[in-house]
């Protein structure tokens, strides 16, 4: 009993994207795993403080430096604070720093790059020169210098992380905008009397956008590492705020005497988060641009 009316209808683009997404995840289960991990991290970031068994700041000197047990899954630190609670609560801050810095560089680098690729000439030269100058520094060292100059705050860590990633975004956006500058659909839009800004906003940006989104997810991991590295050397976040980098730094002194859990669990959380973003970035890239698959 075949239904004659069931001729395949043209799918809406959203349905097509979802189908493609399901196909990519089916092809590569690692991406599915990474996505599940991402959801977990996001949940911890949003609800973390309400879920944890102990107050992350409450010290209990009787219970100080206890190894992992049923009561304290990740053990306790030198002040008797529950490390599991601290690791979970820290997710929000680390996640926020990474997301904020990536969003910032997405705006700065993306817009500057698109403008450079579209207009060429002086705009291109100035953006290129700024990117080259940033690239002349070892990136972490430049981030240190920027935080030192602007002041030792979380906000400046976000700014510094965004600045050191600027060349990457600007270059990608520039290249993608440049190859589309004289494309048929842009010419057509121009001939129909669209202003430059309209072409940029409605023709170029929507095409460059997905590629930059992939870049965002790929740089999230680096952003987290960079921020944690800065707080590890004592910049930005101050104790007793729970944050992974500073927790590893505080736990480092106990490594030589064998109390490994102090530094291990926050470090492991950091590693899992970075790993998750790297995998997710690779998966997203397959989704958006299958040709670049490695």
């Amino acid at each position, binding site marked *: 009993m075949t239904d004659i009316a069931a001729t395949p209808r043209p799918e809406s683009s959203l349905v097509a994207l979802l189908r493609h997404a399901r196909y990519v995840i089916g092809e590569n289960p690692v991406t599915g795993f990474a996505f599940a991990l991402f959801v977990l991290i996001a949940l911890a970031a949003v609800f973390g403080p309400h879920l944890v068994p102990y107050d992350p700041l409450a010290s209990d000197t009787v219970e100080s430096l206890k190894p992992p047990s049923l009561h304290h899954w990740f053990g306790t630190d030198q002040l008797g604070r529950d490390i599991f609670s601290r690791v979970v609560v820290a997710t929000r801050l680390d996640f926020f720093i990474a997301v904020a810095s990536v969003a910032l560089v997405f705006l700065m680098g993306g817009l500057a790059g698109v403008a450079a690729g579209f207009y060429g000439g002086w705009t291109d030269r100035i953006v290129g020169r700024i990117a080259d100058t940033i690239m002349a520094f070892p990136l972490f060292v430049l981030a240190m210098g*920027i935080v030192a100059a602007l002041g030792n705050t979380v906000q400046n860590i976000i700014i510094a992380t965004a600045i050191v990633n600027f060349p990457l975004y600007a270059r990608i956006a520039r290249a993608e905008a440049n190859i589309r500058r004289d494309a048929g659909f842009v010419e057509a839009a121009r001939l129909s009397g669209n202003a430059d800004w309209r072409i940029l906003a409605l023709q170029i940006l929507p095409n460059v956008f997905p590629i930059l989104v992939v870049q965002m997810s790929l740089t999230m991991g680096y952003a987290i590492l960079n921020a944690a590295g800065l707080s590890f050397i004592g910049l930005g976040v101050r104790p007793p705020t729970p944050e992974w980098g500073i927790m590893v730094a505080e736990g480092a002194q106990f490594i030589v005497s064998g109390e490994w859990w102090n530094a291990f669990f926050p470090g492991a959380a950091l590693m899992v988060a970075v790993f998750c973003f790297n995998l997710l970035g690779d998966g997203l890239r397959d989704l958006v641009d299958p040709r670049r698959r490695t």
Partner: protein
Amino acid sequence: MLTMVLKRLAMAIPSLIGVVVVTFLLTRALPGDPAVYFAGPAATPQAIQEVRVKLGLDKPLIEQFGRYAVDLAHGNLGTSLTTGQPVATELRNRLPASAELTLLGLLVSIVIAVPLGILAATKPNSLVDQACRVISTAGVSLPVFFTGLILVYVFYYLLGWAPAPLGRLDVFLSEPPHVTGFYLIDSLIAGDPETFMASLKQLILPALTLAIFSLAPIARMTRASMLAILSSDLVRTARASGLSAYTVIITYAFRNAMLPVITTLGMVFSFLLGANVLVEKVFAWPGIGSYAVEALLASDFAPVQGFVLTMAVMYVALNLLIDILYGLIDPRVRLDA
């Protein structure tokens, strides 16, 4: 060849100017009045005014930049507030420690990553290939300070193979007579095997930490470029001519595959120089990184500025060196230039 080197040198000049301008601007971005800052916390208004005049902060910005550039040309990087020592001298004294660590880290990284990449490429999807993928993904995901701490825990605390992570040399040994500043080389020159072994023991863990971190790009690039070369016509011809697998892989494929790997070294150095700061902190290594961190925490800005400048200049120089090396190895680049 000489013209290529000269052209490349000329191309490094804008980078250097950029570096100097940025480090200058970083001081101007200091929150508040730089004169108050440089005069220290306990300064009287009179002292602040003196500092302002002494540093030339009452002059227009462009003139200040001129003074800064002239100071730099004389090798003057200012004076540290906390130690009272000229920054240039301290950086010079501490640089060998950092350089020895970074170079050994790079060496270990190349020695592991290149064979791993070659093996992975010659046997795609084999166990070695999977191992290469896992190691390089883990390498970029592991925070470098975390790897260092795990190594300390395993090799110092659990196994007792490595010495305590406290600097370049055991406190009971005296440092070798200063020739290069590299303890490994200096102790060999002095004919002192005991000091050589002791400093090597101190170096292994931090160098390994750096190596694990910088492995990934080298291994990935070696694998990718070997894969490309192995499917090329020249390798097919070599195989068809009946050459041994060793000759084909090492003489024909490897030499060609090394070229893109050398270009990635630039990025690897950016990683290494940054990671160096963190590794120095973990292992209490008396290099320029830990000098800068101490100064940063004490809000002592001149050393930080000097450190950022030194690192950037070294990085520009290293990139220059890599490019010239590339030209030496690959004649095609010379023709293009």
